[in-house]
Structures are given as C-alpha cells and as structure tokens.
C-alpha cells in the first residue's frame, strides 16, 4: 500500500476500493451495490459477497438524470440515477446485484426504472418504528433476502456466517464511532471535513480499518498540542452528505465554524448502535436497522433523542439542519427538530435547503455566517 498518511489515504480511498473490488471480482467474489444505511450489509458479507455503496453524491450526473426523472426530485436520487444511466460509476458496472429499500417514494420509483436494466432487489422497509408488526415484516424481508442471495450466488448462508459478519461490521462501526467521537474534544482537534473523509464505500475492507486506527491515533496526537479554542461548534443534522456533496460542511468551516458532529446517516447515526451479537442473527440485524432514526420512519422520536444525546456529549453552539431540495420527510420533520433545538436545547437553529450545485454558495454563506455570529456570542 502506497501511503501511510491516513488523511491522504482516505482522500484517495476510492482508488484503493476500486483496485480491491476489481481484484476480488476477478477471483470470483460477488459484488452487491447498495444505496442506504438500512441495507443489511451483514447478510451480504455472510454470503461471501462485498457490499459497495454506489455513487450518488455528485452534481455532475444530475443533468443526465433529469432527461428521464422530474427535476424537482432530491439531488441524491437524481445523482444516483445519473450515474446509473450514464454508466459512469464502475461499482455499478461491477455489481452482480443491487439492493435497495423503500425509504422514500422517489427512490422506490427510481429503482423500478433501474430494474429494467439491472437486477434490483427492493426490500420493503416498514415505517412505524415502534410497532412489533412492522419489525416482524422487516425480519421477514431479511429472511427472504437471505434466501435470494443463497439462490442467486449459489451459496449457503449459515447462522455462524451471519454472526461472523455481524462481528466484522461491528468492528468497523465501532472504529468509525471512535473516530466520530473525537469531535467531542473541546477545543476541537479534528474538522468536519476531515471526519467526512472516512465515510468509505466498501464494507469489510481490512485496509480501511487499519488506516482508520491510524487516523484516530494521528488525530489524538494533535490533542496534546492544541489548546486554542476554535470557532463555534456545529451539530449538523438532516440529509446525508458525501464526496462531492459536502458543500454545507465546507461553507460552515470556511466561515469559521467547526462541524463537531454530523448526526446524519453519513455521520454518527449509522454507527451509533452496534448489532447485537447474541440471539437470532437475522432478528438482531433487523432490530439494529430499526433503531436508525431516518426521517422515513414515523414517528421518528429516535432522531430527537439522538440529537439530545449528541448535544450533551459534543456541546455544540448551534444546530444546522441540512435538507436536500425535495426531500419531503426531512423537510417536514425540520419543523419538529427546530422547535426542539430552540425551545429545549436553547440553541440557535438554522435550516438550510439546497442541492448539490454550487449556485447558492454565497447566499448560504450569509445565513451560515449570521448563525455563527449569533452562536459565537
């Protein structure tokens, strides 16, 4: 491996991932494309396949998608679809199968169009987080998915395969959690942009985990020398970001703030809880996913509880809620989040509705600077 600098490594992570996935594929391993944190990566790993998160965070493919999809869809859907129809994501080309969930209406229908060209397996994610019946249905979906993979890939997935995969994913999540927890330090020792680098696409890739350990120890070393307080500490919640869609994190940090924690599924939310290692493995996988408080769940009290916990641990000076344009669930839920942040946490709150394009950067800077000025007092 070429570099020992974890920051450089994660900036170039996609190159290492491509190399790894190509090599494994040529050895006969199956590749499964995924789009969402709800995808049960453990079952895919247990089938001997590699789960790879597919591209959907760049503005460059949005225009191509708009030839087919309506333009008033969220940029995440349009970008994903654009990559798909223009064949510009090599991971899509290499995928033997794509797994998707019914998280929102736009995605659900997009998967139908994708399904005309490629095998897309859609799992029906139920939405009532506190209902036993919903959980049972999700467990059934996962059992069916296990059988689908066994049939498609001609393998047998045993319970001990699943338990091994749970342990592997737990190790990965625990390391990511440890890295995100570095944001608790005050004065801060790591930026939001640096933490955004470590959301890699390929799960169960040993080299990533080694470099993640190095990332953590390198950042911890800074802690010994850094005494100067940084700018206002920001808790970023809402829609996920990724490579190419980190605009809001960039602007916050350009304006002098620090994103100390990102609540979104591209941040700490997806690694906050581990999968239970005891009991029936499929039920354990299903339960963990049900504890992931995405706005597609109703009611989504878990998100408010998580924000409260993060506010206690990370001591933010303000909260920013990022909404990708036309993401209705996050957009509507923003009202509930805003009331909670302002009235209960007594923190300044800003909702930012935008897309992947840079066109509104200056406008966003005005409101983000103003929020930082309020928070900095």
């Amino acid at each position, binding site marked *: 491996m070429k570099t020992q600098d974890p920051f450089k490594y994660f900036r170039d992570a996609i190159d290492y991932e491509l190399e790894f996935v190509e090599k494994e594929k040529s050895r006969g391993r199956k590749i499964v494309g995924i789009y969402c944190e709800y995808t049960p990566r453990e079952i895919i790993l247990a089938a001997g396949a590699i789960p790879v998160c597919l591209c959907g965070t760049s503005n460059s493919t949005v225009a191509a998608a708009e030839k087919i999809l309506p333009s008033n869809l969220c940029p995440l859907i349009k970008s994903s679809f654009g990559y798909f129809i223009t064949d510009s994501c090599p991971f899509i080309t290499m995928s033997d199968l794509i797994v998707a969930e019914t998280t929102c209406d736009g995605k659900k229908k997009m998967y139908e169009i994708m399904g005309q060209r490629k095998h897309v397996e859609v799992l029906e994610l139920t939405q009532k987080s506190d209902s036993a019946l919903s959980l049972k249905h999700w467990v059934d979906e996962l059992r069916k998915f296990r059988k689908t993979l066994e049939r498609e890939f001609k393998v047998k997935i045993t319970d001990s395969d699943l338990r091994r995969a749970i342990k592997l994913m737990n190790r990965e999540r625990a390391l990511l959690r440890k890295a995100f927890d570095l944001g608790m330090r005050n004065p801060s020792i790591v930026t939001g942009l640096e933490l955004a680098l470590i959301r890699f696409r390929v799960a169960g890739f040993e080299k990533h985990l080694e470099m993640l350990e190095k990332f953590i120890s390198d950042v911890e070393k800074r802690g010994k020398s850094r005494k100067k307080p940084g700018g206002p500490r920001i808790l970023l919640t809402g829609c996920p970001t990724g490579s190419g869609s980190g605009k809001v994190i960039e602007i916050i940090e350009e304006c002098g703030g620090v994103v100390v924690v990102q609540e979104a599924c591209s941040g700490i939310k997806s690694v906050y809880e581990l999968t239970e290692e005891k009991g029936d493995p499929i039920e354990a996988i299903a339960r963990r996913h049900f504890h992931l408080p995405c706005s597609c769940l109703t009611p989504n009290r878990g998100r408010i509880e998580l924000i409260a916990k993060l506010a206690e641990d990370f001591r933010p000076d303000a909260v920013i809620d990022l909404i990708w344009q036309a993401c209705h669930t996050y957009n509507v839920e923003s009202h509930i989040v805003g009331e909670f942040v*302002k009235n209960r946490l007594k923190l*300044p709150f800003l909702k930012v*509705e935008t897309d992947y394009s840079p*066109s*509104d950067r*200056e*406008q966003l*800077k*005005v*409101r983000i*600077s*103003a929020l930082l*000025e*309020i928070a900095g*007092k």
Partner: protein
Amino acid sequence: MKKARITCGVDIGARSIDIILFDGRKIIDSIVINTGAKPRERALSAYQNLLVKNGIRKNKLLKTVSTGYGRNHFTDADEAISEIACHAAGVAYYFPDAELVIDIGGQDSKVIGMLPGGKVVDFGMNDRCAAGTGRFIEMVSDILDIKIEDISKMSFRKVSGCEINSMCAVFAESEIVGLLQNDVPVEKLLKGVFVSVAKRVVSLMGKSFSSREIIFTGGVAMINGVAEALEQETESRITVPSNPQITGALGAAILAGKR
C-alpha cells in the same frame, strides 16, 4: 471632531453599494451607487472618493467593516460581518427598542428578530428565489414600462389587488403578462404584486417572529405600496427609517466601532 473615532461601513449588495462614514455618534457622509458588473472596483473607488471628499486619510480611520454579498472581496476592510448583524445594528441606531426588522433588498429578503440594542436572536431568509425581492418588483416595472420612482410615493390602500399565485418570479412574470392581456388595470396589478411580495416575506417569519412594530429597511422599503401591503399582511405597525437603504452600511460602521 476627533478623527481617530471615525469608522466606515461598506455594504456591497446585489443591486447597490452603500458606504457610510460614522464618527461614533452620527453619520458624517454616505453614498449609494449601483453595483454594476465590477462591484469590487466600484466599491473601492467610491470608498476612496468618499474619504477624499471628507478629507479623511485611510490610516486615520479606526476601522472599516464590509458587509453584503461582496463583503469578503472588499480587501480594504478590516473585517467582514454578515448583513444580518449589520442591519440589526443599523436599525438599533434609529430605533433602540426595535425587536423585528424586515429587510427587502435587491436579491434577498430577510426577517431579523433582535433584542433591544440590536443583538440578533433569530432570522429567516428567502431561498434562492427572486419572488419577494426588489428584483421581482423591478422586473414587473419593466413589463409595465413604469419607473419605480414614479410609483414609490403612490398609495394603494384603496385599490383591491388582483391575485398573483405564482411562487416563482419567472412564472409570476408570465402570469402578469397574462393578466395584462385580460385588461387588468395597472394599479390592481401593482397592488397584487406588492401583496404577493409581502406574503412571501411574512412566510419567512413563521411563528417565531412577532412584534407590534416592525422596522422595514432595504431599497424596497422606499416603495410605499410594499409597506402598506406589509402592514395589511402582518397586522403590525410598519415604520420605515428616513434612509432605509443604508441601514446595512450604517450597522457595519457602528459594529466597526465596537469591535
């Protein structure tokens, strides 16, 4: 006059550049020019001219603060502060007890909630849409072939406006063209436009902003019909300072003296 206390505020907005010299208590001089295609150069030469005109050398200025869209590109400023904080400070100079400001500028509109003295508590701003901004009114005046100055002083209180439903400035334009084809009188149309601008701004206020008196600033505050429409939509008293276009620059100059 002790020159060591003099500060300067430069507001480089989307449509106009406003510069103010402030001696700590009152405005010494001010200038308002169009932004044009080269805002940085224009702002710099206007700034230099204003200093020369008042016989003030740059090194005698206590501090210069820039604000507005061009704030980070005005290299002669010692600090850049967001226009939200500057408008609040500028309004507090005229109205120390003000709690709520509506500012409608060329490219955006904002609602600012503040404590007496000008400390910002919360704010709302329009998204990337021109409806509800000065630019929208300019577009309409172009279609109607009327100068904004000619309608600014007119009262529309007795006119019942026509409905403008489009939420987008571009579509609103085609809606207006359609209304003209149907011989809708110009004053009804203008009233409709002013009410639609007011409604957009009121929607920014949400539930968290309310006050018996609202201070209305920005270039659009010079149009009487918009102030009337805001009064109608907010049911609050609308007060317009004597020179509503320069509160941002004034606030920048005031904050320059405080930091």
